């Protein structure tokens, strides 16, 4: 009885606390962004490190990204073929594979895979650096953690994730094409016809724009989480899982938001 009462009484306080906590996150995140922009002048510092991170993202994630998108393309083709068999002309498979891969599956699956791969790594790396005082050490040397740690990761992501998405789109479409040909009497001409018929050049830009926004989420959120990790190994673990969850949710939110803003303005 008493505990229930205290629980009810403490509810507004708990809500208030978490609201303040959320505001603090927004504030700290914005401050980090401001510092990030300020540190962009130190290109001598971040440029070589960006190269390192870019290579690590590009070479490290290419295979898994291609694998996932190849399967996505194949499944799209097979299921489309199954679903519309006898109802729609086969070339529709070409249209659906290209449009679903380029507009949705390519960017989103790549982003979700990278949220797990790059996002988790960034959060864990920076979280470890925070709790082992490496970030403090950097600051104690009069150096900016932004230009040494955050900018290289964010920029590398902003460049490489759209590039990976382009590869993912290409492989997804090719895999879809190949699998469509395995199960349907569809010719290359049919597939090409369907692929091209409903194509709009904006689709390609939309795909890249999405990848770009996702890249922002994949790099900024985990960097923020890791950078502000709490003490101890537990803090690093918490930062990492929170980062991956928050990034994935943000990707899906951005996905919806961008579809609304760019496709149905």
């Amino acid at each position: 009885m008493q505990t229930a009462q205290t629980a009810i009484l403490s509810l507004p306080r708990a809500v208030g606390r978490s609201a303040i906590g959320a505001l603090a996150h927004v504030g700290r995140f914005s401050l980090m962004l401001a510092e990030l922009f300020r540190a962009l002048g130190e290109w001598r510092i971040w440029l070589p490190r960006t190269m390192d991170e870019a290579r690590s993202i590009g070479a490290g994630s290419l295979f898994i990204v291609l694998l996932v998108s190849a399967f996505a393309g194949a499944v799209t083709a097979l299921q489309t073929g199954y679903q519309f068999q006898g109802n729609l002309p086969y070339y529709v498979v070409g249209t659906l594979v290209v449009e679903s891969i380029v507009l949705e599956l390519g960017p989103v699956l790549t982003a979700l895979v990278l949220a797990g791969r790059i996002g988790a790594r960034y959060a864990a790396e920076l979280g470890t650096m925070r709790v082992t005082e490496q970030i403090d050490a950097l600051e104690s040397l009069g150096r900016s953690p932004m230009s040494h740690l955050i900018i290289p990761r964010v920029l590398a992501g902003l460049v490489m994730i759209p590039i990976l998405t382009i590869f993912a789109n290409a492989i997804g479409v090719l895999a879809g094409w190949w699998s469509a040909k395995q199960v349907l009497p569809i010719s290359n001409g049919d597939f090409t016809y369907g692929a091209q018929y409903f194509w709009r050049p904006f689709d390609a830009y939309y795909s890249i724009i999405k990848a770009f926004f996702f890249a922002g989420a994949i790099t900024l959120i985990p960097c923020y989480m890791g950078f502000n990790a709490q003490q101890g190994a537990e803090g690093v673990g918490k930062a990492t899982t929170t980062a991956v969850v928050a990034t994935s949710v943000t990707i899906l939110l951005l996905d919806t938001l961008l579809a609304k803003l760019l496709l149905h303005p």
Partner: protein
Amino acid sequence: MDLHYKREALVGSIVLAGVAVFVVATMWLGGKSFGRKDLVPVHFTDVGNVKSSTPVKVSGVQVGKVDRIAFEGVGSVRVDLALTEHVPLSQDAKATIVAIGVLGDVEVVLDPGTDSVPLSPGQVLEGTTAAGMGGLVDELGGQARAVMIGAQALLNQQTADDLHETLKAMQRLMSVYADTRTGPTAEMTRLMVSLQGVSARLDSTLASPALASTMENMDSATAGLTRLTEQLTTTTARMDTLVQNMNAGKGTMGQLATNPALYDQLTATMKSMQALLDSVQAKPGKLTVQVKMF
């Protein structure tokens, strides 16, 4: 230092490869291609569903694509055809936009012409739009209305019965189509609405006592019958084109081609129409109409 260059070169090559894939893929999807191509400008008053990448065919073979569509003013559109095959074009070459499916797909059929004077480079061809599926539906409706008028001049009970059969077949065809699960496209729906109207009118005509009376004056109705036969012929021919398109698997007609019930009904309708024509043709009297069958 060496190590740094290697790393930067790797990043650079990944980025460049990505950009290259992007450019090539968007060009492919946009229907653009590298290599030599002849640009043939065509002037249309209305391009309908033509878009860049719409195929251009000569004798049924794709020889290129629509490259660019430029709006020059109301009723004036310039379309550049990019031909990857070399097609010698004459002064009297013609380009026609032809509808090839019910999803609104079109292609540009290029007739190279027979004139001995070749087309001068940059000369703008005059383009036309063939009666596509949309026009076909309207015409079909018009033909059917004429059939109904002619039917009033029918004298032969056998013919009337055949006509009735035709109507029934049409109705069955329509009932299959009315099943919206097959999701008829807008144009198919238009076709059906038109046919439905015709059917209703024909039905009421046949049921009317006036028809029975006209049937007794067969000889006097020869002229009317001739007209009716001609109209029936063209209508049937049009339906035939429709069915042939379906058979040819012209993409968007695939729904018909692959829906057996619909197809059967359509075929039955045609058979019935044919029987009607046969009976009209076989009718004794001064009828000299040459009925061209398909």
